[in-house]
């Protein structure tokens, strides 16, 4: 487009129109488009959802220096007057309307006595007929000219002018003139004060002119004389710039700027955002962004007068990497800005308010949008599941009592779908039963304590015997032998891998187990690894039937052709076709059978095989140095990956196991599993390794935060199960008012043959009532509602029963009578209404409890007090204004739904 710098301005009246000018004036209209729609010339795409179409072009005026759009209201937006300042000193008035202007204003020109460029034009927003023009310096003329465009011109107005024949000029006597022999760089009418004009002059002054009194009412020395603009939201505030510096002024104390802001490049344009307080936009030369200064409290409201203003600098990049030459704020739409680049590209952009964002403990993500809207993404929403947040997993698992099943640890794993977690719990279960039985002894008679294979092997010097193990079931051929290694450590290790096949029965049961679980290929491979090729063939055949995979039959067929012959056809075929098998166990099986040099690398490298099979295989077939090396490598890699399967190697007795868990936590954030493993197996190590405490504390904290208090309490129960000495002491004691001796051990709920609250009493049934202190025989305090001594039942029976018997309760007097009855016949049975459910009946034990307010020290039967506070807020004791129930704000949190309807 044009090589001239393009400037842009929104129409002050039409919300969908804007103007650009470079060599000519162009009026555009904004239209809504869809983001995918193809926008062709002459329309221009402005953004994802808007396009602009050219409405009109005005090419009559040349050498346009500056344009200002009259802010006054016109009925037709096309009649909106434009003042165009030109390089030859003329200020022309024009519109985009094709019809002549009846008032004859359109087409007028104001020509100064001496021709020099107009640097700026500006309209008054208060009196839209007032137009000011700033001109460059000439010795004998004024540089600020203010005219009233509605005033009849001198001489006689050319009322029929249209813009085409206005060349003769319109010599108009100005309303006011200022700045004799001075230069005006920029000017602006005050948006709030009548007839006040602010102008930047001579590279050193900002002057404020009062048109009513025709005088300069204020002046200040500054170099920031360019781009003066007045803030629509603050009548005293204006901004100007000079090179890299933006200054913000207060008209009341214009001696020095309120604030100087540094821009990193020379500023070209400044503008206050009309839709938001204190947002100043600033375009810089050769910059692809618009800088925004969020000026807060700059001589703003009360109490902030003496404060330094705070500025938040932002930058927006409407269309990088093109340089922004000009921009314009939309006069009405919130934070909307349109920018023009040097190439003429226009971008419609919305400046976002700063977004604040936060997560809640419930996993909800909240962020602000605009000034007032909050958006919330809940875990219940489908988009949330894409995040695969570990928090959701932890919450779900905790709710389903993950890790709280003490008897069968393996059942904990079934809560999750995660295979490695299931394996982990299986291993824990097995290991724990090994520990519990105590039969399983490590080499040297050491009892097993969650050691792993790796720690077994590195414990002492490994010295293994080589044994030739015969192949079983290879009838009709010469006896074949496989070279296997045996030692005490290896046997233990094999047992830990559930491969401890010292006798035939164990192997058979293991294979049956695998088959039952549908792992036929794995069973076959294990059989082959144990030299039972016929068994493997049978397993595969059964698998083919059971799982309806006929391919297993052919695999069995191929297996049957196994030969020791090193150069046979079978061997070549197997070697070449092996890689095409999809099942890792079949691959490993054939790799094992075709292996020549006893290297077994293909088998050991089969990463899809279960770790325990690989380890067991290695423990059987690898020589001592190779075994150590292999396990070392595997151990390092699994720990590096945080793979929980590696627990088989590391065990939990050594720091290596904790290292592995730590790595797992680091990578997955799943502190839950680590903490649960800790309480189940690593209790003894809690004091030794601070990391374990950290996990446990973190998980407890997490459960608390999630509001899963029951789960947390159960966790604590398990964690403190074997710490009888450290059982927390009783929290609350009740002592007699008179002798100050504790009565808690004697208290027992009256009429309850079985006391479910063991800690409240010793449980002997003969101490059925206790209305007096057992030590000094003085009576216990009375319930403030029923006025009966504490220690008697409250008499209302099942507390839930009162839901339908609320009329029965009545006042305090009847209450005490009821209480009497209750003592005689036992609380639960004599209530007039049948108890609704057994669950409610159980709750009624609570009714006789001592309850008192920690603040006013008044109290009584728990149930009476609860009834009271359902309807009252103050204490039932005369003259006590304590709002006992409201004191505890936890009650408030619980009752939030109660508040909600308001």
């Amino acid at each position, binding site marked *: 487009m044009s090589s001239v710098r393009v400037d842009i301005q929104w129409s002050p009246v039409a919300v969908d129109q804007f103007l650009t000018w470079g060599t000519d004036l162009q009026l555009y209209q904004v239209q809504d488009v869809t983001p995918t729609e193809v926008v062709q010339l002459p329309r221009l795409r402005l953004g994802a959802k808007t396009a602009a179409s050219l409405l009109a072009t005005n090419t009559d005026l040349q050498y346009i220096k500056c344009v200002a759009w009259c802010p006054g209201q016109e009925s037709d937006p096309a009649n909106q007057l434009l003042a165009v300042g030109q390089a030859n000193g003329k200020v022309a008035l024009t519109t985009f309307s094709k019809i002549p202007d009846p008032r004859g204003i359109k087409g007028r020109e104001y020509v100064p006595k001496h021709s020099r460029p107009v640097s700026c034009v500006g309209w008054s927003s208060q009196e839209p007929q007032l137009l000011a023009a700033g001109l460059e310096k000439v010795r004998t003329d004024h540089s600020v000219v203010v005219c009233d465009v509605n005033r009849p011109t001198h001489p006689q107005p050319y009322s029929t002018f249209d813009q085409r024949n206005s060349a003769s000029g319109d010599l108009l006597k100005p309303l006011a003139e200022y700045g004799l022999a001075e230069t005006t760089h920029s000017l602006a009418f005050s948006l709030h004060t009548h007839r006040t004009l602010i102008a930047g002059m001579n590279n050193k002054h900002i002057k404020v002119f009062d048109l009513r009194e025709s005088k300069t009412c204020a002046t200040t020395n500054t170099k920031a004389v360019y781009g003066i603009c007045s803030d629509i939201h603050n009548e005293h505030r204006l901004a100007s710039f000079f090179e890299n510096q933006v200054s913000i002024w207060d008209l009341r104390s214009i001696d020095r700027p309120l604030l100087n802001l540094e821009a990193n490049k020379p500023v070209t344009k400044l503008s206050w955002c009309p839709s938001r307080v204190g947002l100043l936009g600033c375009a810089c030369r050769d910059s692809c962004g618009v800088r925004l200064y969020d000026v807060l409290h700059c001589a703003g409201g009360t109490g902030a007068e003496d404060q330094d203003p705070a500025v938040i600098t932002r930058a927006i990049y409407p*269309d990088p990497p093109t340089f922004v030459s000009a921009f314009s704020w939309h006069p009405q739409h919130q934070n909307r800005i349109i920018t023009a680049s040097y190439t003429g590209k226009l971008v419609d952009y919305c400046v976002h308010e*700063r977004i604040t964002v936060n997560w809640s403990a419930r996993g909800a993500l909240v962020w602000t949008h605009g000034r007032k809207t909050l958006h919330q993404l809940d875990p219940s929403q489908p988009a949330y599941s894409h995040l695969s947040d570990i928090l959701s997993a932890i919450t779900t698992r905790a709710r389903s009592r993950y890790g709280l099943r003490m008897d069968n640890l393996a059942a904990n794993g079934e809560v999750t779908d995660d295979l490695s977690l299931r394996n982990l719990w299986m291993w824990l279960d097995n290991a724990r039963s090994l520990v519990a039985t105590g039969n399983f002894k490590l080499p040297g008679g050491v009892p097993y304590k969650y050691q792993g294979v790796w720690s077994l092997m590195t414990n002492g010097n490994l010295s293994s015997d080589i044994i030739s193990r015969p192949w079983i079931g290879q009838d009709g051929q010469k006896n074949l032998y496989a070279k296997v290694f045996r030692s005490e450590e290896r046997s233990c290790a094999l047992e830990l891998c559930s491969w401890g096949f010292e006798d035939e029965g164990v192997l058979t049961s293991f294979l049956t187990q695998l088959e039952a679980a549908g792992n036929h290929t794995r069973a076959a491979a294990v059989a082959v690894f144990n030299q039972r090729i016929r068994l493997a063939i049978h397993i595969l055949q059964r698998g083919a039937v059971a799982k309806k995979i006929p391919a297993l039959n052919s695999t069995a067929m191929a297996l049957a052709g196994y030969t020791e012959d090193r150069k046979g056809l079978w061997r070549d075929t197997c070697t070449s076709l092996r890689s095409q098998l999809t099942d890792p166990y079949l691959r490993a099986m054939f790799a094992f059978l075709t292996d020549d040099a006893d290297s077994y690398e293909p088998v050991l490298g089969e990463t899809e095989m279960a770790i325990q099979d690989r380890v067991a295989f290695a423990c059987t077939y690898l020589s001592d140095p190779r075994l150590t090396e292999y396990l070392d490598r595997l151990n390092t890699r699994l720990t590096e990956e945080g793979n929980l399967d590696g627990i088989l190697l590391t065990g939990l007795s050594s720091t290596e196991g904790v290292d592995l868990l730590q790595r797992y936590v680091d990578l997955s954030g799943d502190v839950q599993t680590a903490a649960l493993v800790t309480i189940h197996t690593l209790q003894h190590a809690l004091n030794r390794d601070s990391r374990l405490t950290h996990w446990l504390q973190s998980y407890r904290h997490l459960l608390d935060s999630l509001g899963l208090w029951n789960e947390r309490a159960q966790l604590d129960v398990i964690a403190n199960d074997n710490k009888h000495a450290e059982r927390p002491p009783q929290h609350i004691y009740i002592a007699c008012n008179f002798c100050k001796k504790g009565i808690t051990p004697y208290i027992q709920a009256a009429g309850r043959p079985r006391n479910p609250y063991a800690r409240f009493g010793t449980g002997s049934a003969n101490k059925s009532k206790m209305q007096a202190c057992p030590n000094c025989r003085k009576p216990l305090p009375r319930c403030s509602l029923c006025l009966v001594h504490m220690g008697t039942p409250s008499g209302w029976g099942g507390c839930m029963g009162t839901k339908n018997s609320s009329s029965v309760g009545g006042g305090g007097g009847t209450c005490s009578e009821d209480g009497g009855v209750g003592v005689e016949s036992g609380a639960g049975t004599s209530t007039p209404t049948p108890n609704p459910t057994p669950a409610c009946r159980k709750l009624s034990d609570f009714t006789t409890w001592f309850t008192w307010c920690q603040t006013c020290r008044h109290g009584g039967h728990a149930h009476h007090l609860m009834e009271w506070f359902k309807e009252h807020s103050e204490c039932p004791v005369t003259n006590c204004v304590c709002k006992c129930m*409201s004191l505890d704000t936890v009650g408030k949190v619980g009752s939030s739904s109660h508040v909600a309807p308001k």
Partner: protein
Amino acid sequence: MLVVKSLNAEHKDLVHDVAFDFYGRRMATCSSDQTVKIWDLNDDDGEWVCTASWKTHCGSVWKVTWAHPEFGQIIATCSFDRTAAIWEESVSDSGHGVHSTWIKRAGLVDSRTSVMDIEFAPKIQGLQLATCSAGGVVRIYEAPDVMNLNQWSPHYEINCKLQCSCISWNPSPSRLHAPLIAVGSDDPNPASGGKVFIYEFSANTHKWTRVETLVTVTEPVHDLAFAPNLGRSYHLLGIASKDVRVIALKPTKQDGSQGQSSLTSFEVRQAGQFDDHGSTVWRVSWNLTGTILASSGDDGCVRLWKANYLDIWKCISVMRGDAVENVGEAEETNNSIQPCGGTASGQHTARYFKLAPTAHPSHVPWH
């Protein structure tokens, strides 16, 4: 298409901060209109209900923060008016229902400049409160008697020498980790060096000492947040600057007992640095487990970051501020990860590149 719940915050001006209580059942918002609003979650329909709204300060309220519920229902606010304030809820039951009033318990007026950020210490350190001011002073207050919230003594003053914008306690509940505070500065001059400082409290000397300056962060920092440390061996710090950064701080000392006596030294590793926002990043926030980082930037988007199983951080979701659509799914298929090789010091930088840029997020008209 992203479906989110929306809520009109009913503030008269820009909302600066949203804070949740320990359980995520209560929410506090603060705004330039000088007020704070408390919202309670309605159990029945899961909607937020405003239960209190009051004028707190004579200036924009920058931040609001909740204390641990074991100290009561307490919030603290900080403002442009150079003060911070402690508020406690007092619930009264007038018979027509429960009313909650928030009573100002204390005003902290020590700062001579705008108080930019405020945060309660983790529960384990008692009722402590850290503030930072635009004047570059971090103050740590403590209520010696948790029953008397009127008394807050300024225990420590740390001069950061650069204007401060944000502060974050290390929320680790473990006694293993000495108290840590990260302070960010929004000083605009890159020449003034690192903008994030880590301070550690030594129980022996009773002093806060700067143990680390993140020299790689020289751009102004607008927000930072320690991730909740749930059993990890290192601390994660999310930083909102010109870009989003994730910094891992690994204490090099293993032994807890020694850590008490001398200062911890950290192995600083940059786990991620992302300029996807393409402009200034304003806020960062961690989820409860410290596994997902949310960031918001000037592009009007909220982005979520997560580490994969290889510990490489990447963007998992992008949400436009106006929540009209979610470009996250497209993003996920379009990006590729290219970890750049570690330097001699074993530093590992993960970078995230977007091959096909999505539709420019900025082209969103206001509605």
